[in-house]
């Protein structure tokens, strides 16, 4: 063995000596000679009929899709249509799923458990806790993702998405990021976990980390329903009846655009501070347009993206359901853990224009943004000891009309400020645990995962705090 090591040492020494002789440009020379060989071979085997006709269609399409006049309008149109189809189209299947899972299967399971005489806390833990959380996540999450991802994948396979990166690159360059982040950001509107996975397309380490950390500022499918509900209750109520829907939609879009603003802001901050020294490079291939195979794409994108993400979400949501049930049902000194926690969190909550219930809901519902509203409702009712509303201690619920929901929330002390700040906080808080797990898997770094969790929280508290103080000064309270 010693002999081999000696010889290995000689090889390394020789390599080091020769490297000095050859100089710095070995890589250049090698690449040049490989391409020279490639050119010789391809000239021997390749023959082209009518060279000009090559890619004329592609170029014509490129000139339209990246033109100064039409480039941006086409892009905005396509993206809004996709989002609109997703939000509108998901309502119907979501409703069906919740009728099935919450109104049919859930009572049935309760009945079965009652008839076999299951102990009350096992029944509560499993059905009211775990099952309800899972059912909510599936009903709210599955339909929009099953619509959004296939549509997105079709655009990707056609070759349009690289052109979006091309169009928007200047904006991202100014904040120190990569144009392809436009795609991962858009993907984040579907689901942040999927958005984080999609940052693999960015091959430069620094820009990829920026895209991962800032993906959370894309308002994901799990948060759209919260935004729409709260906007309808609190902001829609400010205007005459006919304009409620329009005003609510406009304010939700406002929040989403604010998210884009924060994406740029935090990208810029990161590239000036934490990520300053990371290697950065830019290359973007614009592949030829290829007609996507419709059914195959739909099939693969559902399997590949939707179901994987859904599975991850369910794995995290199940224990969350259990925790939610437990904090409401385990009593210490006569009050439930939830009541204690709400009491302690309330002062800080009020300082930033929220309240203890909201903060607790965001702590226990880290696994999925979908269950934040049901958790808030349950905690509010339980905390106020409202009689005749809700479904019992630790049982999450939603109400059919936003009016009733609004009534409960207002009874819980909510004002217009609480509503607005909840919308802001829903945008600016730590990513859900599915996304955090995905970030850890992608970066393999606890540090960057922590940064991704803490950065949005800081933004969230600073923004809600400032809004609350300025609001109170103006309102003169």
């Amino acid at each position, binding site marked *: 063995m010693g002999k081999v090591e000696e010889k290995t040492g000689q090889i390394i020494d020789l390599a080091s000596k020769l490297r000095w002789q050859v100089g710095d440009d070995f890589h250049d020379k*090698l690449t040049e000679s490989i391409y020279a060989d490639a050119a010789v071979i391809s000239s*021997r*085997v390749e*023959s082209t009929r009518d060279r000009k006709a090559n890619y004329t269609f592609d170029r014509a399409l490129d000139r339209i899709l990246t033109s100064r006049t039409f480039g941006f309008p086409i892009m905005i149109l396509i993206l809004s249509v996709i989002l609109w189809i997703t939000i509108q189209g998901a309502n119907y299947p979501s409703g069906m799923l919740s009728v099935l899972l919450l109104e049919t299967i859930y009572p049935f399971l309760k009945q079965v458990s009652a008839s076999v005489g299951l102990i009350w806390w096992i029944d509560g833990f499993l059905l009211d806790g775990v099952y309800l959380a899972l059912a909510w996540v599936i009903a709210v999450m599955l339909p929009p993702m099953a619509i959004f991802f296939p549509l997105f994948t079709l655009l*990707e396979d056609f070759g349009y998405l690289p052109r979006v990166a091309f169009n928007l690159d200047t904006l991202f360059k100014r904040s120190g990021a990569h144009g392809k982040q436009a795609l991962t950001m858009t993907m984040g509107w579907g689901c942040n976990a999927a958005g984080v996975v999609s940052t693999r*397309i960015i091959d430069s380490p620094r820009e990829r980390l920026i895209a991962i950390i800032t993906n959370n500022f894309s308002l994901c499918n799990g948060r759209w329903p919260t935004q729409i509900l709260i906007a309808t209750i609190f902001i829609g109520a400010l205007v005459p009846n006919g304009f409620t829907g329009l005003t609510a939609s406009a304010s939700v879009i406002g929040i989403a655009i604010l998210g884009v603003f924060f994406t740029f802001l935090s990208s810029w901050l990161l590239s000036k501070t934490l990520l300053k020294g990371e290697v950065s490079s830019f290359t973007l291939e614009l*592949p030829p347009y290829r007609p996507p195979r419709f059914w195959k794409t739909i099939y693969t994108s559902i399997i*590949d993206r939707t179901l994987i993400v859904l599975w991850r979400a369910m794995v995290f949501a199940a224990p969350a359901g259990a925790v939610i049930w437990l904090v409401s049902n385990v009593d210490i000194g006569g009050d439930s853990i939830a009541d204690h926690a709400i009491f302690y969190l309330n002062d800080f909550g009020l300082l930033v224009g929220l309240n203890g219930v909201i903060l607790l809901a965001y702590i226990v519902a880290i696994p999925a943004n979908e269950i934040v509203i049901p958790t808030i409702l349950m905690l509010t009712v339980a905390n106020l000891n409202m009689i005749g509303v809700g479904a019992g201690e630790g049982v999450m619920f939603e109400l059919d009309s936003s009016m009733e929901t609004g009534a409960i929330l207002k009874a819980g002390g909510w004002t217009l400020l609480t509503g607005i700040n909840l919308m802001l906080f829903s945008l600016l808080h730590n990513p859900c645990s599915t996304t955090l797990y995905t970030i850890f898997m992608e970066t393999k770094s606890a540090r960057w995962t922590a940064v991704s969790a803490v950065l949005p929280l800081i933004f969230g508290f600073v923004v809600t705090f400032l809004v609350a103080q300025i609001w109170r000064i103006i309102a003169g309270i």
Partner: protein
Amino acid sequence: MINQVTNPCDDCAIYNAAQLKKLGVDVENADYVVTLAGNPNTGKSTVFNALTGLRQHTGNWPGKTVTRAEGGFSYNDKRFKLIDLPGTYSLLSTSQDEEVARNFILFGQPDVTVIVVDASRLERNLNLVLQVLEITGKAVLCLNLMDEAKRHGIEIDDRTLSKDLGIPVVPTSARSFKGINELIDTIHKVATNEVLCKPHRIKNLSDSVNMAVDELSKKISNTYPNLPNSRWIAMRLLDGDQRVLQALQNNEFMIT
């Protein structure tokens, strides 16, 4: 030189039924390990799916498959394990994708490496092909997207290409499953040494570089006589590749 790939009959019903079985992700106890390399946007994942019957998503991006995908098929009673490497333009840079691809071809020592290229952009794709051929001789060139090349008026003389590269060349259009059976048959032949390759080695090196590479590679093959790619390792050492240097220090090349 090498045996020209005989064209097995495409339409035989027996062909698929008797010899070919797609194994999906069931890749235990494989007889041969086959790896799939290629540039981004060459339909590499489509080829992978066509070979294994899996449905991995194909995307128009480099780096789609950072973690490598695995699948398998069995042919002539032999089980093949197929590993899809990330799409890369080269194996010389130091990006994460290229590390994964390079390390697998070099240290994973696959029985066959299938290099998928875009027939309409051959010259660019040959950059990667020539690099792979420096590392491993047991390779098959899958000339994919033949339909697209035809649409753009490009014709490829695959026999000459096969002669120049010293490895079998199989034209395919994986989207419509054209040529996949020939590809499988060729992989089998290369794996079982029925077809012997004589891979092209990079010429056109400038004199000073060539001398340095020769000197170092002689020294390496003296120490490791069984190493098939001493020239490539010499090139990597001259380029300051830390991973290869480390492998040398840890005696990782001794196993061959």
